[in-house]
């Protein structure tokens, strides 16, 4: 926007100067994400939940599981839907109201990474083919916004899914009925990990913080699965990437993603 403050301009200049010297503003190396901490089971009323700190960015994701009608062309699969909301308390610029294009993109990128990896075996969530399936609703609330919401929401959603217990439902007289006291782990097949990288000038940095985020030329989010394959990708920002940069980002997403996956594997109930 045209209303960049002088402080922001100076910060931007500082970030550029440091990158030229091979340094980042918070002392990290270029391919080093911020400190990631994950707590699961933070919302006992939800079937799965996680609270994630990625540096100063903080997200709570809750999973609700409930019977629903399947999508018309996918009668043999359960439903999986991700949403996100930047709560008004998360940032001075965040306003309540319907989601804008940034938040819609955020939710769709998180959704795509998890969906395309096949993390949850949706075929196991069918109660009656074409009629009733279980829906998994993963809703992420951003409670502190300090850059790179893509990865924070993605890790929180993945962690919440890993901790999810699916209640047992049975069809009785065409109506789904919950069987009390019986539950099972979510059918997990792989652990997707998204890595968001930003380009500032010719430099590519992993997990940009809030200050870095505001001076990105372009960004890319690449999600990999447990096999080290790439399963989803989204470019954003006002400029582009060269082919060489994209290939390098792909490699970085595999190596850095593997480390993050180790953290996610420690979550109780993770079977992978």
């Amino acid at each position: 926007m045209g209303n960049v403050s002088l402080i922001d301009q100076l910060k931007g200049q500082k970030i550029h100067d440091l990158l030229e010297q091979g340094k980042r503003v918070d002392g990290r190396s270029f391919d080093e994400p911020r400190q990631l901490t994950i707590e699961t089971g933070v919302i006992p009323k939800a079937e799965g939940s996680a609270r994630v700190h990625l540096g100063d960015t903080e997200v709570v994701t809750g999973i609700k599981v409930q019977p629903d009608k399947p999508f018309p062309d996918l009668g043999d699969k359960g439903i999986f839907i991700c949403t996100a909301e930047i709560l008004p308390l998360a940032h001075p610029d965040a306003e309540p109201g319907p989601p804008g294009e940034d938040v819609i993109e955020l939710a769709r990128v998180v959704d795509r990474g998890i969906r395309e990896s096949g993390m949850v075996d949706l075929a196991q969530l069918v109660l009656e083919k074409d009629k009733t399936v279980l829906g998994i609703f993963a809703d992420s609330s951003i409670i502190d916004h300090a850059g790179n919401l893509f990865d924070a929401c993605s890790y929180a959603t993945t962690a919440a899914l890993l901790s999810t217990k699916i209640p047992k439902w049975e069809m009785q007289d065409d109506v789904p009925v919950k069987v009390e006291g019986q539950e099972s782990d979510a059918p997990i097949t792989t652990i997707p990990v998204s890595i968001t990288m930003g380009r500032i000038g010719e430099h590519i940095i992993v997990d940009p913080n809030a200050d870095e985020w505001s001076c990105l030329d372009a960004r890319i989010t690449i999600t990999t699965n447990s096999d080290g394959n790439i399963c989803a990708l989204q470019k954003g920002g006002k400029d582009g990437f060269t082919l060489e940069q994209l290939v390098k980002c792909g490699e970085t997403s595999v190596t850095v993603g593997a480390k993050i996956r180790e953290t996610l594997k420690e979550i109780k109930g993770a079977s992978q």
Partner: protein
Amino acid sequence: MILGGRDTDLVLLDENGIRCDGRKIDETRKIMIKAGVLKNADGSAYIEFGDNKIIVGVFGPRDVHPKHLANTDTGILRCRYHMSPFSVEERKKPAPSRREIEISKVIKEALKPAVMLEQFPRTVVDIFIEVLQADGGSRCAALAAASVALADAGIPMRDMVSACAAGKVVDTIVLDINNEEDQAGQADMPVGYMPNMEKITLIQLDGVLTPEEYKKCVETAIGGCKLVYEIQKKALTDKYFSNGGNN
């Protein structure tokens, strides 16, 4: 599942390397672009890309409404990608879906590096994309047409933005995924590319690729973008030079 589709028995690729619509793996669908198809818009283009039929109108640079969106340092770009209710098999509700809002955003960001908005502070360039009939790869077709419409509007540009998708079908990387291949194939990667500046300004991926396939897929898509670039240039040449430059 013999031929590797997600969950269908549609033959996506036969033993001779021919795809479900008769194309070879490195062949695009039929593409036709016409520049300057609207009277009122400052620039416009119509594209047929396989069964996609998309019309794009560009207005601007012009005053920004609402005014608070205006930027004193540069012009701004706005983009609306919209699908007509009758454009798809099952009627689409006319209100913009989350998918359309996301596509509008990625197309806008794909065009932004090419448009010299800094020459027009306090103004807006509006791009309106209407998908009259949708097939697979509508965002690429829309981006290619929008780029021609911007050039037709006489807006200064650093480069054209071309677009084409590549994807994976039966464990094979193929160019320009159609609707059936998108539904039943293994991966779809739309790419937007500035052919002279060699810069990728749009890239997305749905589906699983090994790192080697990923690289090949991007390269294949860029190859497609270069083909589309020639057709974009021809559309502009046809409008502006077909009559000895008197149009």
